[in-house]
C-alpha cells in the first residue's frame, strides 16, 4: 500500500509540474485558462493527500472554480476593453522591466539577509491554538486566534483589489443577457443549494472542515452562476450595498479587534466569547469576500454595448 501511495503522489506531483509548464507555455490564453482550472483541481487533490481538507476545499472552490471563471471572463472581456494608451511603447516597457528587476533584487536580497541572520537561531514555534471553546477546528482556530493578523490582512487585500479595479473601470453592473434556458434551469436548482452549502460551511467551520473563505468561494460561485443565467444578484447589483458589503469583512474584523483592545491586545479575544466572535467575524468576512469576487467577475467581463453613464 505504501508503494501505491508513493506512486499516486508521485504521479500527482509530476502532473502538477507538467501542467504548470504547459500552462505557462501554451500560446492560446483560453487553453491556458482551462489548464489553470485543471491545475487548481489537481492541487486540491494534492492538499487532500496531505490531509488538509480545509485547504483542499478552498483551493478547489477559489483556486480552480472562481479564479478560473475570473480568468475566462477577463479573456471574454479583453477584446472589448479600450486599448491602454501607454502600452506598447518601448521606453516605458524597458523602464518597467528595470523597476521590476530592481524590486525583485531588493526582495531577494532582503530574504537572503533574513535567512542568514536567522540561520543560527531556532525557528518560529509552531502555532498552537488555545485549547477548549467552540473552535475545535484547528485550521479556523489558527486563522482567527494564532494568525489573526494574517487573516485580517488577507481580507483587506481582496477588498483593496476590488478598489483598484473599481478605480480603473466604470462600476456599472454588466448587461442582463438572455441566457439559454438550460442555464437558467441549472441556476434555479443549484444556486439555492449553493447558498445553503455556504451557510453550512460557515457554521460548521468552527468545529470541522469549512470556514469563511470556503463559504465565500461557494457563495461567490453561486453569485457568478446566477449572473451568467441572467438572474439579479441583489447585494452586488446595488452600488451602495455592494460597497458597504465589500468593506464589511475588513471593517467588522478590525472593529471587533479594536473594540477588544481594552481587554487585552489587538486581535486577542476573551476566552468565553471566542466562539461567538469567530462566527460574527467569519460571517462578515464570508459575505464581504463573496461580494468582492462577484463584483470582480462583473468588472472584468464583457461590457454593456451603450456608452457607460
Amino acid at each position, binding site marked *: 500500500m505504501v508503494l501505491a501511495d508513493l506512486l499516486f503522489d508521485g504521479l500527482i506531483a509530476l502532473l502538477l509540474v507538467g501542467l504548470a509548464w504547459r500552462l505557462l507555455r501554451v500560446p492560446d490564453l483560453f487553453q491556458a485558462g482551462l489548464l489553470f482550472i485543471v491545475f487548481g483541481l489537481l492541487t486540491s487533490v494534492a492538499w487532500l493527500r496531505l490531509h488538509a481538507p480545509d485547504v483542499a476545499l478552498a483551493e478547489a472552490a477559489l483556486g480552480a472554480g472562481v479564479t478560473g471563471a475570473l480568468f475566462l471572463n477577463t479573456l471574454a472581456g479583453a477584446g472589448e476593453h479600450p486599448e491602454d494608451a501607454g502600452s506598447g511603447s518601448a521606453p516605458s516597457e524597458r523602464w518597467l522591466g528595470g523597476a521590476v528587476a530592481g524590486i525583485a533584487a531588493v526582495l531577494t536580497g532582503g530574504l537572503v539577509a533574513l535567512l542568514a541572520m536567522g540561520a543560527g537561531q531556532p525557528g518560529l514555534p509552531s502555532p498552537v491554538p488555545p485549547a477548549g471553546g467552540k473552535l475545535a477546528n484547528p485550521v479556523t482556530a489558527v486563522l482567527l486566534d494564532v494568525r489573526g493578523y494574517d487573516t485580517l490582512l488577507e481580507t483587506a487585500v481582496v477588498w483593496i483589489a476590488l478598489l483598484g479595479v473599481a478605480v480603473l473601470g466604470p462600476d456599472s453592473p454588466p448587461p442582463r443577457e438572455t441566457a*439559454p434556458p*438550460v*442555464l437558467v*434551469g*441549472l441556476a434555479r*436548482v*443549484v444556486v439555492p*443549494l449553493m447558498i445553503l452549502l455556504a451557510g453550512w460551511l460557515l457554521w460548521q467551520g468552527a468545529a470541522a472542515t469549512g470556514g469563511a473563505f470556503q463559504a465565500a468561494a461557494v457563495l461567490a460561485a453561486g453569485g457568478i452562476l446566477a449572473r451568467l443565467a441572467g438572474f439579479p444578484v441583489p447585494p452586488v447589483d446595488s452600488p451602495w450595498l455592494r460597497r458597504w458589503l465589500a468593506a464589511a469583512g475588513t471593517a467588522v474584523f478590525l472593529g471587533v479587534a479594536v473594540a477588544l483592545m481594552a481587554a487585552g491586545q489587538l486581535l486577542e479575544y476573551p476566552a468565553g466569547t471566542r466562539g461567538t466572535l469567530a462566527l460574527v467575524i467569519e460571517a462578515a468576512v464570508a459575505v464581504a469576500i463573496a461580494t468582492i469576487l462577484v463584483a470582480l467577475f462583473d468588472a472584468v467581463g464583457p461590457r454593456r454595448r451603450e456608452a457607460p453613464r
Partner: protein
Amino acid sequence: MLSEVVAWLCLGAGAGFFLAGTAGLLRFPDTLTRLHALTKADNAGLGLVALGLALRSGSWATGGFLLLVWVLVLIASGALSALLAAAAAGEED
C-alpha cells in the same frame, strides 16, 4: 462480506466507465461525440463509484451524502453538456 464484494464490483465497473469515457474523449472525432463519451463516464461511472463507496462506508449518512454528490453532478453535467453541445452546434453554422 457480500456487500464488500458488490462494492468492489461497483468500483471496478465505475472505473471501467471512466476509462471508456476517457478513451472516447481522446479518440472520437468531434465535439458532440466526445461529449457523448464524457457524459457516460460522468453519469454511470460516478454513480457506480458512489454506490461502491457508499456500500463500503456502511453508513446511511455517508451514503446519503454520496447520493447527493451524484445527483448534483448529474444535474450539472447534463446541463453543461447541453450548453457545450449548443455552443459547438452554433459554431458550425
